[in-house]
């Protein structure tokens, strides 16, 4: 009897220990996320004058603080999840650098009611950040293994309302079109014209240009009321090649 009591007590203690370890771990991840966000925000204020407000919008900051990046990073890189760097996720793909994710999300200027299409789900992290802002997120990935893993991770982390699909992103997601925003993270030799068609008037499309570990610049496509398409080419740092007036 005595033994059974002790055993139960031990079990309770053990469960409590695991629970509090989990809480502490979550807490520690939250702390790391907050620290990372402070870094990103400072970085953006210091270096970027391309964002309309020269700082990240509140909703992007909240989203970035909320999404557990470590849940979208392969186990062996989990300890680096809150470093401000891209990380390999297999199949020659990476999870983007948090600063770039924050910038791209901010440049889309999303509202809670907007619908957004992501071409190139990758790890699913970007989709989760978008899903913190709006519930209408559609994401397509061509690499089957990545698509399945990302869908599972999104579900596991509570972003089960993100609609995912495996396949070719060139023609977008006709059934859900048009979109207020589109983000194209899969490399392409050109911007697919069908995606521009699926962009609403006043909509925004963002495309990072460069390789997995080296972003070159961001391309922001906007569509005005007359269906005219304009592109802004954005260097994500404050650097002016020209000096003085000539």
């Amino acid at each position: 009897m005595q033994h059974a009591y002790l055993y139960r007590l031990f079990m309770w203690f053990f469960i409590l220990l695991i629970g509090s370890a989990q809480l502490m771990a979550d807490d520690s991840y939250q702390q790391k996320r907050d620290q990372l966000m402070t870094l990103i925000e400072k970085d953006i204020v210091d270096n970027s004058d391309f964002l309309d407000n020269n700082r990240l919008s509140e909703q992007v900051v909240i989203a970035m603080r909320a999404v557990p990046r470590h849940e979208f990073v392969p186990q062996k890189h989990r300890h680096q999840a809150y470093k401000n760097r891209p990380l390999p996720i297999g199949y020659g793909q990476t999870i983007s650098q948090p600063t770039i994710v924050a910038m791209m999300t901010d440049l889309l200027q999303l509202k809670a009611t907007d619908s957004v299409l992501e071409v190139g789900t990758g790890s699913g992290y970007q989709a989760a950040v978008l899903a913190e802002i709006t519930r209408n997120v559609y994401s397509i990935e061509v690499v089957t293994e990545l698509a399945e893993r990302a869908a599972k991770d999104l579900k596991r982390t509570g972003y089960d309302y993100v609609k995912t699909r495996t396949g070719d992103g060139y023609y977008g997601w006709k059934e859900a079109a048009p979109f207020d925003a589109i983000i194209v993270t899969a490399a392409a030799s050109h911007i697919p014209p069908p995606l521009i068609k699926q962009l609403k008037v006043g909509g925004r499309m963002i495309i990072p240009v460069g390789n997995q570990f080296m972003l070159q610049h961001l391309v922001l496509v906007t569509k005005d009321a007359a269906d005219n398409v304009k592109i802004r080419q954005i260097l994500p740092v404050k650097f002016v090649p020209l000096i003085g007036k000539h």
Partner: protein
Amino acid sequence: MNRLDNGFYLIAISIISACSLAYEVLLMRLFSIIQWHNFAYMIISLALLGYGVSGVFLALNRDQLTKYFPTVIMTNLLLLSISMPASFLLAQQLPFNSAEIIWAPVQLTYLSAVYLLLALPFFFAANVIGLSFYRYKEQVSSLYAADLFGSGIGSIAIIILLFMVFPEKILRLLMLTVLLVALMLSLFVFRQQKINTTRWNTLFISIAVIAMIIMPRYDSLSLSPYKALQQFLTMPATSVISNKSSPLGLITIAESTDLPLRHAPGLSLKATAEPPRQLAVFTDGDAMGAITHFDGDLATLSYLDQTTSALPYHFKPLSELLILGAGTGSDVLQALYHGSAHIDAVEQNPQIIDLLKTQYADFSGDIYTRPDVKLHLAEARGFISNSSKKYDLISISLMDTFGASASGLYSMSENYLYTEQAIQQYLHHLNTNGYLSLTRWVKLPARDMPKLLATVINSLKLDNANQPQQQIILIRSWQTSTLIVKNGLITPTEVSQLKQFSRERNFDLVYYPGIKEQEANQFNILPQPYLYLAAQALLSKQSDDFIDAYKFNIDPATDDKPYYFQFFKWQTLPEILPLLASGGISLLDSGYLLLVAALLQALIASLVLIALPLWLCKAKLGIQAGEQEYRRVMVYFFSLGLAFLFIEIACIQKFILILHHPIYAITTVISTFLLSAGLGSYMSSRLINNEREYTILIPIMGIAILSSIYMLNFDFITIFLLHQNDVSRFILSILLIMPLGFCMGMPFPMGLARLSLTRPKLIPWAWGVNGFASVISAILATLIAMQFGFMILVAFAVVLYGIAAFFFPR
């Protein structure tokens, strides 16, 4: 056996040298495939440290090693044969990712491990050669001649092999060759020695048999998952359907049966047409291009009218066309779509041509055998030099020097396509009112196009153009920009055609005669109209100030400094460094910095692995306390190590311009240098027997006089040779290089011969010092050429030879 009484030994030394050189070239090729070119260059330069470290090892253990000479030689040959494939196959298993190096310091550890692994074969090869120098010191000139002769043969053999066999298979071939050499020595040279040759023979044959059975299972290449080919293959229903290998690169054809490829770089956002079915073409697993399906229906090619490079076709009907770098044919298709009647298509890679003419002839519409397309297998600059034909349009679209990238240096290498002299040649081949069209990728912040623009403007000025600003048009999309240079003045009609073309496709006007600032930067908006401002500044009188003040190196490239892709400026580095972590990494043009990093690494590694042990163990080397003479020896062999490669590299770069094809040029120059230097080394024994010290001045005066004559008259030599036919050009080039190589082969064996009489114990040490200098010489030569040009590089070499003459060992 203290004298070389057996010709087999010299043959063995020749073959080992041939295998080492072949292995070096092979590694460059292999690493270009599994990683990227610039890292291939770094890795190989460091791997050569094996030579230097061997010098230390021999210097410190020379007497013991000589005591067991046959066993040591056999052991080293055995280890060399095994390490040649094993080092590479192990190195490619390391998770080294050069693209991640800025983010993950652990990558530096992997890189170091790669260096160490690859240095091993060179260490073993150098042990065999270096110890032979010491053992047979009286015949050092014959040995060195055999070494150089072998290297010369190796440099030719590897190029031939790379055309015939996939590079990974050559690893096995080299292994077997070295084992064969070992067997030969065992049977014909060491038979009389106190070693059990039967046991060795059995061992060699067993290893050869095991390698033949086991290696085919393990010698496939593991490409970085971040290369375009690997990423393509992660998509469903994709597969490699064909591979072709040559020294110019590994060409891989892949297809996707599920998803269309849709390769159309720079396609307008307003385009409604899609490319027809395409096959992906990768060079060294990267740099994707496409073979486009063409069944004769021109309407299927309408997407090619939606790129910036289509602009000149909208000015007027263009009949005579020259397409440089025709490759898989998209520029030819663009010209056909626009109704051009006569197209000269120039492509230098025979394997690409072969693919389009045979295997994929039906798929690609047999474009290279059409009556309206004339195909030329040639290098662009070479073709234009030998042609007197004039054209309505000369087009170079998104083409980088294939040869430069294949030779392993990429952005650090020469590029004669976009120099002032090249542009002048293109312009001289235009009909009156013809166009030169140059299309490049857009790089942000702008550096590629401003540099090209500066080069074009200078070329026009050199051609005494009165109004260069009236001859230029520049447009851009978000992805590509096209620069048009007209052989005549731009007319108002052309300006209105240009405006309509750009407006319909959402392309931006950057420059045309009379452009207003508000017209630029309309569709693809940059924070400022940078390219427009750059064009205005470069066309103004303050262009030099602008180039000086610009944060990237946009100095026009010339034939003497043909480094078009060198954009790096030291002044900008402090501004860029703090931006690296926050997305500014692309600001860093890493090619040049990698070269500097490679030099630093080589210096540090050489100091730690070569110089320091030698310094600490002076007594063991046979240097007595207070003795200063060894310093002369050090300066002598160090200067020779630097100077030899300085001249060789300058000649390679210069002769590429004359012999056109980089691979043939490099092979011709290197093999001629090595073979003639081998002859020089052999003949140097006559000078060595002369007791007088000043005999060293004979070859050094020869080097100084010949290299000065060549460099000072190089323009004349170039023009003269370019007017000869192919065979005469190659023969005359060889005849020009031979006397120089002959003289350059003499000082090293003369120094060693002198040491063999006065301080034989220093021979392995001198070998090490020379190896150390060779490691840094190749990188240093490129840096000097980039900074000051080839003339100065050769001047440095002549001074170094002068220093060597002064410090000739007593």
